[in-house]
């Protein structure tokens, strides 16, 4: 078994129009820049994107939005000082937004990966973001029913991988990577380093290879 693919083209092969794609990262930390640029070249359109944010500046996710490839974004914090690409598309009605509290976003992703059908979360109860959702009083506390977010693909960034797809991350760039890897049918990982089997200490592997389908090495700063 060898999950290492030779380049971005092979890594992103088969991403279809209309796909739901999770993209890792919190701001720039953990954002898989090369995979996003590769996705723009690859050409898939009409995409639903799941990310914590909605792009900064003109590169990465913002460039994907600017290329008009995205119909809907599910995120917790789209508005930033330099989120002007998102802002413009959202105001003109060209981009649908599903706003989710960050912890519910994370748990909905985790639930998908864990095979959970839905869960009751206390977050957001009594707020605009719970309007229209089922609620339940459990042991004196109010909860909102939240459903998992499944994805066709996840594009994430890790520091190191081996050919079985075992991953370790770097610092706070880990963020959404491990749970998105669980939630997608096909998880595509860009790494700075590919190492031999056995080089990753089994006690510290963060994402076991079962959650990873393809690994591509990029010339990152920690290569």
């Amino acid at each position, binding site marked *: 078994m060898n999950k290492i693919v030779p380049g971005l083209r092979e890594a992103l092969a088969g991403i279809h129009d209309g796909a739901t794609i999770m993209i890792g990262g919190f701001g720039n930390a953990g954002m898989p820049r090369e995979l996003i640029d590769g996705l723009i070249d690859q050409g898939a359109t009409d995409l639903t994107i799941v990310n914590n944010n909605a792009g900064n500046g003109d590169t990465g996710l913002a460039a994907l939005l600017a290329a008009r490839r995205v119909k809907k974004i599910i995120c*917790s914090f789209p508005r930033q000082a330099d989120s002007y690409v998102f802002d413009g598309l959202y105001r003109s009605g060209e981009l649908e937004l599903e706003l989710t509290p960050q*912890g519910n976003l994370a748990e909905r992703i985790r639930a998908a990966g864990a095979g959970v059908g839905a869960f009751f979360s206390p977050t*957001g109860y009594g*707020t605009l973001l719970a309007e229209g959702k089922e609620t339940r009083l459990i042991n004196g506390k109010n909860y909102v029913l939240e459903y998992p977010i499944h994805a066709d693909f996840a594009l994430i960034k890790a520091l190191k991988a081996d050919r079985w797809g075992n991953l370790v991350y770097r610092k706070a760039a*880990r963020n959404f990577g491990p749970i998105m890897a669980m939630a997608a049918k096909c998880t595509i990982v860009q790494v700075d380093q590919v190492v031999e089997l056995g080089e990753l200490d089994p006690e510290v592997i963060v994402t076991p290879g079962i959650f990873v389908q393809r690994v591509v090495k990029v010339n990152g700063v920690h290569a």
Partner: protein
Amino acid sequence: MKRFTRDEIASRVARDIPEGSYVNLGIGLPTLVANHLDPSREVFLHSENGILGMGPAPAKDQEDEDLINAGKQPVTLLTGGAYFHHADSFSMMRGGHLDICVLGAFQVSKQGDLANWHAGAPDAIPAVGGAMDLAIGAKRVFVMMEHQTKNGESKIVEHCTYPLTGMACVSRIYTDLAVIDITANGLVVLEMTEGLTLPELEKLSGVPLTAA
């Protein structure tokens, strides 16, 4: 009227954080609290993006793109600190493991409802981030804010007019005029700026207050 400065408010909050506490400081005014924590006491700062034991900003040219706080500014990790993924990070909040979180606010109601994520403008681009998870998750929620808006309206209100972040979640309010506990028996004033009287504070606040 004498008012507490932002640093005085932050210092007052810092004094109320016991050694060994797990604490999340929200974006904006609450981040000032970190500068006032007594370095001889160990307090664990949590950052929603997967850090416990967060340290101060790095020296110039030591910034690391992979080590940032919730506001996406560069930070450091203290010796003994840890990284973890987002579902674990928000389990720390929702699961009630954080002792204290300190948040900014547009409004706090006398029942402790919090409004701090949406200014209510119909054309505003909404963004919530971790605000709602923090509001309902920590054992105690401290709010740091100016007592009044720029137009002189009280930010402590009967009922929030801005969209809510969480219901009945705030424990204590620190403002430039007072420190106020939200209790089952209403709002209890623990401290006021020098020279201010309870009736004067009550008039400025527009809600019933009692002395501790």
